[in-house]
């Protein structure tokens, strides 16, 4: 061999003291990083994906039509969402299985396929609305939809399919940072804080049907089935250990609280501007952003647009993943974010198809987005009770959950949440169908 080497033994000392990153071996440091990142994980991502284009449109409508009056519902919704998300995280940790997998094992293939097909339809609709949201947000900056949406679609696809789960999760966490735009926008709009505080604790109820519909829509858009499905699958994929469960549950609850604080600030921001100035009707999230300009200055509009973009990107990335997980779990296909096409063909194909369809429909000019969203709401409304019922039943089963099965107050609260949200969801479906 032609390698020239010194004749004497070489002694090599490491000149640099900087240590290589050896992920498999640096456990104490890793533990510290994890403790920090623990606050920022699937719980945060899942709950905040709910503040997407549809969510922002709903909250803006609430703020424009009733000012701060509906803020008290956000408090109640936060409790329910936190509870449901916590149970989903717990089931993921204890069983090491996704929700669709558990439903299949305990209730058979028909129930799991029923739940799965509803998830696919509902999520596809939400996915489309989020690509519309991306187009609308970048439209505020003058970028045409035909340019922004395809670029966003390709970017999201690359993150999910080419990255690992960890890197994808880290990027998703960055997507949640624009949510801070809403509190800033709200503060810039100078709300009457005394009235805000009162509205948070004192319930106001009107008896007209428009109020009831908006109330149900608020609950429906905040507690969405894919959040639990995504959270549980993500916890499983993360491989969270049982002794890390308390942290994971805290994170699920914290995610729900953060998401709803953002929702509350959207209501406050629109309440302080649109409602206060007599604008009671808006038809889309972008309208809400534009409408803020005269009252809150150009910053508010930019902030609103940035928030909408982050929210829509996050949801447009989460929905294909959640859908693909559910289908793969219930039909028994290989799955995992970052898996190559040849490793998990069905999983990757579903993600690709969701993103393609979502982006494609969103750039068709004149797509009836509003009626599409209404249809999606109906499917989601039908799905939520099924989903919550299974979560409640599975989480309270000692056979499945062992020591960690829910009992007493927790089980009671879960049952109440299931009953109330199911009633609201079914009411929404009835109202939507009869008003068509």
């Amino acid at each position, binding site marked *: 061999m032609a390698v020239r080497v010194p004749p004497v033994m*070489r002694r090599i000392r490491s000149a640099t003291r900087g240590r290589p990153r050896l992920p498999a071996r640096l456990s104490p440091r890793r533990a510290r990083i994890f403790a920090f990142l623990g606050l920022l994980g699937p719980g945060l991502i899942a709950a905040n994906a709910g503040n997407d284009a549809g969510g922002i449109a709903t909250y803006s409508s609430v703020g424009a039509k009733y000012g701060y009056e509906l803020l008290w519902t956000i408090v109640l919704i936060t409790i329910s969402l936190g509870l449901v998300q916590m149970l989903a995280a717990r089931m993921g940790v204890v069983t090491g299985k996704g929700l669709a997998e558990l439903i299949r094992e305990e209730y058979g293939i028909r129930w799991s396929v029923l739940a799965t097909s509803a998830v696919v339809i509902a999520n596809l609709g939400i996915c489309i609305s989020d690509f519309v949201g991306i187009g609308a947000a970048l439209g505020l900056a003058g970028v045409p939809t035909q340019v922004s949406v395809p670029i966003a679609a390709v970017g999201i696809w690359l993150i999910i399919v080419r990255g690992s789960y960890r890197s994808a999760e880290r990027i998703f966490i960055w997507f949640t940072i624009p949510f801070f735009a809403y509190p800033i926008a709200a503060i810039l709009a100078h709300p009457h804080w005394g009235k805000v505080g009162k509205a948070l604790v004192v319930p106001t109820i009107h008896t007209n049907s428009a109020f009831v519909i908006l109330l149900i829509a608020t609950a429906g858009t905040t507690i969405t089935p894919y959040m639990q499905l995504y959270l549980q699958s993500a916890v499983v994929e993360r491989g969270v250990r*049982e002794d890390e469960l308390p942290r994971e549950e805290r994170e699920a609850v914290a995610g729900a609280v953060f998401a709803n604080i953002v929702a509350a600030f959207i209501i406050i921001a629109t309440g302080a501007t649109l409602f206060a100035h007599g604008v009671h009707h808006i038809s889309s999230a972008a309208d809400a952003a534009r409408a803020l300009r005269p009252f809150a200055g150009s910053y508010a509009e930019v902030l609103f647009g940035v928030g909408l973009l982050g929210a829509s990107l996050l949801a447009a990335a989460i929905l294909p993943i959640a859908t693909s997980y559910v289908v793969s779990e219930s039909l028994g296909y290989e799955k995992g974010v970052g898996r190559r096409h040849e490793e998990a063909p069905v999983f990757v194909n579903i993600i690709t198809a969701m993103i393609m369809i979502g982006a494609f429909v969103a750039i068709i000019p004149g797509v009836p987005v509003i009626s599409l969203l209404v249809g999606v709401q109906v499917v989601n409304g039908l799905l939520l009770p099924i989903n919550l019922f299974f979560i409640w039943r599975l989480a309270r089963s000692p056979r499945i959950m062992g020591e960690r099965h829910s009992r007493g107050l927790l089980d009671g609260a879960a049952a109440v949440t299931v009953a109330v949200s199911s009633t609201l969801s079914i009411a929404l479906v009835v109202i939507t169908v009869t008003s068509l």
Partner: protein
Amino acid sequence: MSAVSAPAAEQPPILHLSAVVGSALRDANGERLGKVEDLIVRLGGTGYPPITGFLVNVAGRTSFLGADRVSEIATDGVVMRKAKLDLRPFERRAEEVLLKRDLLDRQLINVQGARLVRANEIELALVAGSWRVVGVDTGPRGGLRRLLPKGLGAHIATGEFLDWAGVEPFVGHVPTVRLRVPHPKLAKLHPAQIADLVEAASRREGEEIIQAVGDDDRELEADVFEELDDQHQREFLEDRPDAQVAAILSRMAPDDAADIVGELDENRREQVLSLLPVSHRVKVRALLGYDPAEAGGLMSPDFILLHGSSSAGDALNAVRRSRIAPELLTAVFVSSQEGSLDGSVAVTALVRADPTRSLSSIVKHEVPCLSPDASFEEVARLMADYNLTSIPVVDDGGQMVGVVTVDDVLEAMLPRGWRRRFGLLGED
């Protein structure tokens, strides 16, 4: 592929579990008595597991019906031998599982493919005089048949299915018995494949795999442990008593054992170490003193170091006698008069050399070596530059303390996403 085609004409016809469950229970005269709810099968033996009985619903009550009382099983129902019905409550005997409740729709190990699959349908056939489970359908046909209404689903033909010989079911979730069914088929897999399965399975299923492997073969259990990723290693070690952890560690190479000890809780380390055999303990403890990201943390303390005056034949004998794993023993190291490292001789060179020649005459001097605190990049770069599969580590006094082999470096260099073939992805 691991699937077998549907049996040819001379083989017995296949019956689907989903067709039998829910069908009628009839007496010898064809009178309908009730409904079949589930089939009981006994695992644990060799060959296809036999059906030992049925759960039947007669007049709203679920009871047990032994297989010996049944004359015929078909899609249109189960026919009893006698007209008289003798119903007993069902009590699970050892190694018995319910096909629908415990196996259908759940995960199984496809042993040939070394992956997890889900049972969409369970296939039965009359083999050697009794009805047995012959295979599992994991494809879309089985699922579709059960999704469709019974009349339509019956038209879906039997597709390819996995022969039972290539399948291991999970039984850890089966209540009451917590039965200990051995999984002999797993032993055919490579430890790395078993580790992949454990990582892809849920916690309980993974525990079941490790337990089954450990019951049959402690050596294999230790090998599987070495192959598991950190997270799973820690998870499974936490549940085990110190003595068991020590037993596993003592079967591992010292450097792998040191990695695992490093993963343990600070307060458990000493207890576990004290339970190791003395020679092993000394090596592991020495390795624990090094930074895991430096040469000292990567190296193995097992190597052969001989004086330059020894002959090639002596060196070969030393290789023969030693119990060092083959991948760690690619070269014999040679020391100088003062005991410091002089160079190395590849085992291949020893085999080729005249046995009477002294090592000092065939030693290769121009071999780089590392100090224990050489960084990981140094290790990787030197091995690549000099085309080495192993590299000696030498302390400040010139004494050889260990050897870093290429597999350790490869493992640490592997990009995160490549680490696993399936299941969970690499962690931070």
